């Protein structure tokens, strides 16, 4: 019952609703009974198939009925049909579930059935073009998933499914175009951590396959993130992604540049929890990984500034004050 408001009804309204519901209930129970009994009897007829359609339209979460539907297709329909007919019936199921998703974008069973359908698409339409149907279906699938993400850019079903579709297409789309997609999503709303997450995955692939230059990308990413930080320093999606860009902080130059940039932002926005929290984290990395570079005297300065920031954080961000307390103890005990 996520997000369903409690509503008060008058007694009359409730009674009227109960009357309507009673009729629906009878119909529903009769339909359930008929489907279950046909299923028990191994009935894989067209009629049985149509009954599952009726049921799923009413209750798309009835996984047993989805299973029965797939069984009918596998055990009867696929055996007796041409590839053309198989492709048609699967397209029909994809269209049907597209309509379901518009109403119920977060029901696992619907996404799952689509996945199953796509994996059953036969080769065709011709021997010369064995991937024609598949490619057409996958492309359409990517379009559907983009529409779903237009409606709710954080729907993790849709994002997971998107990655699955991209990986399954017979002809792969370039990682660059997926990177551009995340750019558009981030420009539309940079609170969308799902898009930043996807970006981190795509960039990793680009770097691992040697298709992009990590040093150059990192610079561009830092610039993008800096714009987001200054626009809204209170949005945690951006700071989490920034942490990925810095990673273990092995590059002292980048680390120091980012520390001073965040310090400037903190000067302009002195109540920014994320500025303080990130400064502590990156300064800690500096002490841990580059203590040789900064010299003994500055090490004490950095340490003291971390402790100061942690003290402020305990007030500014009191929900997590115990964490800041724990961090302070650790930094105080740091052997530098």
């Amino acid at each position, binding site marked *: 019952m996520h997000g369903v408001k409690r509503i008060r009804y008058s007694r009359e309204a409730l009674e009227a609703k109960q009357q309507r519901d009673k009729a629906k209930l009878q119909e529903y129970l009769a339909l359930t009974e008929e489907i279950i009994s046909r299923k028990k009897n191994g009935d894989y007829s067209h009629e049985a198939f149509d009954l599952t359609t009726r049921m799923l339209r009413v209750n798309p979460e009835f996984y047993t009925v989805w299973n029965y539907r797939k069984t009918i297709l596998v055990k009867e329909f696929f055996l007796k049909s041409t590839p053309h007919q198989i492709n048609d019936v699967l397209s029909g199921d994809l269209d049907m579930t597209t309509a379901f998703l518009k109403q119920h974008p977060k029901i696992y069973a619907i996404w799952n059935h689509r996945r199953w359908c796509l994996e059953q698409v036969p080769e065709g339409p011709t021997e010369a073009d064995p991937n024609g149907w598949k490619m057409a279906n996958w492309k359409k699938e990517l379009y559907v998933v983009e529409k779903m993400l237009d409606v709710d850019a954080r729907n993790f079903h849709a994002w*997971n499914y998107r990655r699955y579709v991209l990986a399954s297409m017979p002809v792969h789309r370039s990682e660059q175009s997926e990177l551009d997609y995340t750019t558009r999503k981030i420009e539309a709303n940079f609170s969308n951590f799902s898009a930043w997450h996807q970006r981190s*995955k795509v960039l990793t692939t680009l770097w691992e396959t040697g298709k992009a230059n990590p040093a150059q990308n990192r610079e561009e990413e830092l610039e993008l993130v800096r714009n987001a930080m200054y626009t809204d320093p209170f949005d945690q999606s951006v700071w989490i992604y920034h942490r990925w860009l810095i990673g273990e902080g092995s590059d002292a130059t980048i680390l120091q540049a980012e520390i001073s940039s965040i310090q400037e932002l903190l000067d302009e926005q002195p109540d920014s929890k994320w500025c303080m929290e990130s400064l502590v984290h990156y300064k800690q990395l500096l002490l841990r990984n580059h203590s040789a570079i900064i010299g003994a005297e500055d090490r004490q300065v950095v340490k003291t500034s971390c402790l100061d920031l942690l003290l402020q954080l305990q007030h500014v961000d009191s929900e997590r004050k115990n*964490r800041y307390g724990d961090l302070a103890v650790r930094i105080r005990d740091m052997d530098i």
Partner: protein
Amino acid sequence: MGAEPKLNIPLHVKYIQSLGENKDDLTYHLTAHLRMNAVYWGLTALYIMKNKDALDREEMIEYVMSCWDEQAGGFGAHPDHDAHIHATLSAIQILVMQDALDRVDVDRVTKFILSLQQPSGVFAGDAFGEIDTRFLYIAVQALSLLGRLHELDVEKTVGYIQRCRNFDGGFGAIIGAESHAAQVFVCTAALAILDRLDVIDQETLAWWLSERQLPNGGLNGRPEKLEDVCYSFWVLSALSILKKLNWIDADKLIKFILSAEDLEHGGIADRPGDQPDVFHTQFGVAGLSLLGYPGLEDIDPVYCLPAKITEAKGLRKDWEALPRRV
């Protein structure tokens, strides 16, 4: 707690008891595919509220057994529903709580569960193949409760979890997926059962989890999302396993959970003013238990079962909840 709002245990007990009496209500039948889970949620919530006997034991056991899918060798969510790994775990958990595990054909269930492991190491929910780290956790816990963990390929299983880890320390539903508090719970708890918490970047994950708390005290499941009572359990259980439960503000969260109580009909909702359900009631109560709310039984965050039960079975892992308040 002074004049603070209190958990209305008698009302919630009544609410849970009433759930089985709505058979004239269409919604009751539309949610039949969740019935076995709902019974588990209800029973666990009652147990934590020290009202374990509020539902009839025999009737419950008979119901569970009537959901046995003889063909598949697992439990369905309702009589005549297909066997599914989720319903199967709930059935086992119910029978464990009712001390009736002897009713189960352990060999067949073990075989059913193990048959769902994929070459990658993850588990499918049923024969039709939806995969998710939730199902992996379910398999691990079920095998543990059945005493058959030694039959699991642990390396392969842990390997899959490892590949689901993201830079923020969290875990997603499948490889490549965004970190999500519910998936963090299942992966962390599975690793706890398998004694492989070394796979986790604990510092980073505890940071990410502590950032789930919003200014209103509630917890969200991902960055920049809304709060929801059910995350009280997902986030808190993972933090208890990492022994960092004090990294969030317990008082504020308690207040938030209590604000989502329906004080007219009983039950707890996802957030204040919404319709309550047994799922959020259970996870709200479980969250309160981990936070040391007075008058509740301890819940084991690894198994999401009463700690008494897992201790009696010698399954208790090394976790820390907040001390019980009086």
